[in-house]
């Protein structure tokens, strides 16, 4: 699974992207965030405030119950501030 991080999530996690082998019990976005939190204090800090974390799977906005699978591009970022 390809993970992408933007803005302060990128800074707190310490990288812009990575490829991860996600365990088989991770089937939804919410479970993915829980698992990422367990990877280290940088992830736990970045993902602590869940309401501030937006998720896109394959470049579409999704909710916490959206399914995820190997091969997906999953992006985590704060609420957008363009324009």
């Amino acid at each position, binding site marked *: 699974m390809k993970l992408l991080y933007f803005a302060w999530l990128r800074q707190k996690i310490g990288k812009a992207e990575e490829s991860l082998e996600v365990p088989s019990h991770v089937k939804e976005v919410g479970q993915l965030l829980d698992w990422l939190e367990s990877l280290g204090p940088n992830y736990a800090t970045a993902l602590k405030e869940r309401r501030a974390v937006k998720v896109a799977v394959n470049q579409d906005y999704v909710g916490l119950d959206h399914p995820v699978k190997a091969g997906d591009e999953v992006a985590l970022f704060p*609420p957008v*501030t363009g324009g």
Partner: protein
Amino acid sequence: MIRVQRGDFDIGAELERLAAGSHQVGGIASFIGLVRDIAPAESGGGSGAASAMTLEHYPGMTEKRLQEIEAEANRRWQLEASLIIHRYGRLEPGDRIVLVATASRHREAALEACAFLIDWLKTEAPFWKLEESAEGARWVEARASDDARKAAWKK
């Protein structure tokens, strides 16, 4: 048409091109967003004005979302042409950030669609602003009022 680019754009040339080749266009509406100095109260109590801003975006998803927003505007209003240009990278006060322009036979469609496009773009397009000032850099926070403006367009 949508464009996501680092470089500046020429407003006059872009607006002229929007109506070129079509005598159906009766009016063009446009919105141009600029980098402004941030008042201390707005930036969370700091004393210095913003000296620059860096816009980060999500290449691929940005273009996809802008195309969807543009398509939605064209579903809701009868437009002869539409254009969204959004810049990324480091920008300074006074620099242009975004151009939204719409052309239609009568002014109502162009004016409404232009307002719709900038309201939706602000809450849908994956851009993030990092402001730099004398106190350091801080990520701009999303405003609830922007969400409310977007929601007001829901049919």
